[in-house]
């Protein structure tokens, strides 16, 4: 199949599912191609690199775009010495941090980039060392580790009465670590700058040489709250690489797990959003519902958060009590509707939610805001709707969308998605096809590449991988939508006051672990 982007005509090769297209282009044409995608209304959703020197090549830069044609996975081969590619931040702002991380991990430079500060590297390894290169060895620990202080040059705001509030990475509550540098006058925020990477665990390095089945367990734990989404994306990539056809019932069950996970997370967020405006009633009620929901999951499938129920080749749990799940979904719909009425009519809550932390649609497009937060700012992307992979192609998902871009919009989108997911759960339960739930993995024989992309509760979760001829993983890149959504938080807080930050932050509820890797 062929596709045109501006004056660039491409021959696309389908890869893993009907809507992922893959092609290779030289790095000199990368900017023109990205610009063509941008002009057409597309977005960059992931950027990563790989060290292909052991395959007799150099390095490679991978970019993944969302366009009207589907997901386009473009791959640019780069030379082995001084690998560089043209900077994309002028076209897609969200490329900035991904490019910096790519340099920290692989030493691939973005030529012409304005911001070349380190991103994922704190002081754990030396500037000249790049952990994702195949010749990097973590054993023994690199001698330079710890000798350098983590001096990160924050951008200063100067002026009369401006001062800085450093927050984190250790917080008063039990939450993930991240550093937030506020420049304020009084309580009004002039600038917020994030510093992430505190939970960098070397997940991508850990994948190297891992068995395919064990890889699923690690992939699912990249960000625990999106376990089903990561597991599915990983399995989709493995199955694409192996050319494995998964039984239909397994696909339907995977969708069921993904929607259960979405409902659980949205319920939790709606509760904590109430708690953040000191409406503990909402917190207690939503978390009661979430707890009952998790217990139901544990009863039906053997794990509260459905850990390791999605495995390469199918699923590891089957559904026998369809009536129980159907009834629970119906009951939950009623209860959430009742609580929504309370939130809707509570003047104090509405006053705190409305007009707080606004990201206008035009700004959201510029930033590449995606997923749930994107849909609250008019960014109409939902993989389940536009590029439905089975079984979503038979489910007709309704997209939740809001134009306002404030905390209230993100709350409304969550409510709408809870109702939609509960409807989907009931529909899946009723239409669940019969048959086996698992297909045996074929014996590996050659190098294979694959990409999986699933609409998790936060947004599109991507896992791209390459396996060696020995059937072990060679390079795995998991991508969380938090990468492109974190910068939007810096924009959303502008003009707001410091005490509203936790509420705005919670309304995005982005992953630290999924971002820091």
């Amino acid at each position, binding site marked *: 199949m062929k596709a045109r982007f501006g004056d660039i005509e491409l021959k696309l090769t389908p890869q893993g599912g009907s809507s992922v297209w893959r092609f290779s282009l030289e790095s000199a044409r990368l900017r023109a191609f990205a610009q063509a995608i941008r002009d057409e209304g597309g977005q960059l959703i992931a950027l990563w690199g790989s060290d292909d020197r052991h395959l007799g090549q150099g390095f490679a830069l991978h970019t993944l775009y969302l366009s009207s044609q589907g997901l386009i996975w473009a791959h640019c081969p780069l030379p082995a010495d001084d690998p560089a590619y043209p900077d994309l931040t002028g076209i897609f702002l969200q490329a900035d941090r991904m490019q910096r991380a790519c340099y920290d991990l692989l030493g691939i430079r973005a030529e012409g980039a304005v911001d070349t500060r380190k991103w994922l590297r704190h002081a754990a390894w030396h500037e000249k060392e790049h952990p994702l290169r195949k010749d990097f060895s973590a054993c023994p620990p690199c001698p330079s580790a710890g000798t350098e202080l983590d001096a990160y040059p924050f951008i200063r705001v100067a002026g009369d009465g401006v001062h800085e509030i450093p*927050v984190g990475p250790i917080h008063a509550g039990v939450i993930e670590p991240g550093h937030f540098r506020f420049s304020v006058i009084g309580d009004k925020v002039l600038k917020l700058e994030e510093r992430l990477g505190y939970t960098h665990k070397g997940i991508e390095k850990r994948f190297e040489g891992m068995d395919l089945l064990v890889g699923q367990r690690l992939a699912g734990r990249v960000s625990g709250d999106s376990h089903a989404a990561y597991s599915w994306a990983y399995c989709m990539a493995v199955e694409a690489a192996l050319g494995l056809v998964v039984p239909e019932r397994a696909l339907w069950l995977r969708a069921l797990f993904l929607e259960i996970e979405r409902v659980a997370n949205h319920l939790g967020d709606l509760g904590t959003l109430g708690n953040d405006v000191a409406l503990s009633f909402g917190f207690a009620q939503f978390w009661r519902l979430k707890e009952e929901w998790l217990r139901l999951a544990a009863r039906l499938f053997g794990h509260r958060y459905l850990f390791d129920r999605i495995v390469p080749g199918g699923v590891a749990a089957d559904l026998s009590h369809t009536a129980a799940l159907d009834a629970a979904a119906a009951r939950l719909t009623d209860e959430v509707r009742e609580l929504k009425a309370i939130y809707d009519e509570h003047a104090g809550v509405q006053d*705190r939610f409305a007009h707080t932390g606004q990201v206008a649609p035009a700004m959201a497009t510029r930033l590449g805001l995606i997923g749930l937060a994107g849909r609250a700012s008019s960014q109409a992307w939902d993989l389940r709707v536009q590029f439905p992979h089975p079984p979503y192609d038979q489910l007709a998902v309704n997209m939740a969308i809001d134009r306002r871009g404030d905390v209230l919009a993100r709350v409304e989108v969550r409510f709408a998605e809870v109702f939609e997911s509960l409807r989907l759960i009931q529909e899946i339960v009723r239409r669940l096809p019969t048959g086996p739930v698992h297909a045996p993995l074929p014996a590996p024989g050659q190098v294979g590449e694959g990409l999986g992309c699933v609409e998790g509760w936060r947004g599109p979760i991507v896992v791209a991988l390459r396996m060696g001829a020995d059937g072990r993983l060679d390079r795995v890149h998991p991508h969380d939508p938090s990468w492109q959504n974190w910068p939007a938080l810096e924009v959303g807080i502008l003009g707001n006051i410091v005490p509203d930050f936790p509420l705005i932050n919670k309304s995005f509820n982005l992953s630290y672990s999924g971002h820091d890797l």
Partner: protein
Amino acid sequence: MTAGIVLQVAQTLLALLLAPLLIGWVNICRAWLQGRSAPPLLQPYYSLRKLFHKDATLAHEASPLFRFAPYMIFACMVLAAAIVPSLVNDLPFSPAADVIALVGLFALARVFQALAAMDIGTAFGSLGARREMLIAFLAEPALLMVFFTASLISQSTELPHIVERLAHQEFAIYPSLAFAAVAFWMVSTAENARVPVDNPTTHLELTMIHEAMILEYSARHLALIEWAVALKLYTYSVLGIALFLPWGIAAAGDYTSLPLALAALVVKLLLGGAALALLETINAKMRLFRAPEFLGTAFLLGVLGMLTHFLLEP
């Protein structure tokens, strides 16, 4: 005189004992209203015991002021609790301070709290101190207006005279006190860092007012501050009772009605705690910059109370 001193000591000890219980009771009511299972009534005591048994951690930059402040704040609150008549009227300590001095006593504790918060130089300490002062400078005038309204009725700013006039002389309905009561409730929520002005249970450091100032305290220092917080809530509660529901407080020298006075106090505190929990459950915390409007309204209501007194209660 001896009996008076004994009663004074007894009332102060009662305040020290009941204050954590009041906090425990409010927490129980909040849990019930939210459909959670409740913590034990004695939980605040358990927490105090735990804190007193720990070793204190001090910032390297902490000056002696930082260590001294908790004792000062605690002493201020004990004195305040001793002055307000809760069981019996006209105790030996009462003439020591009238309502204006009481406001000053609260202010003194607050100044030490804010200074200690800024002393160690963390961002949150100064942030909390700044917000606390914003709230305080608006709350104090409103509180004074409430007291003036009550003083106008009894022609005295001494609490024993106010209680004597309202509780033990011929019963009368004062419309001015209705305005003052609402204003008093609004000021109390702000002064005691309760919803809708502040959230005592939050862990989000950026939203805190009172909690931000005490983030660096630990062990016995924190225990004293927590106890002082409980005492402040208790003192405001008995103050509200003395001004607006004084019936039951024993008259000066009337020792036979003491058991009745104690029972009345406990019942009123139980009801007041439940009402506080209810208001905290149905309200959300307001945006910080709405607090001035909230306290401005309290001030306005206090002034309205005074005007009503001149118009309707000649």
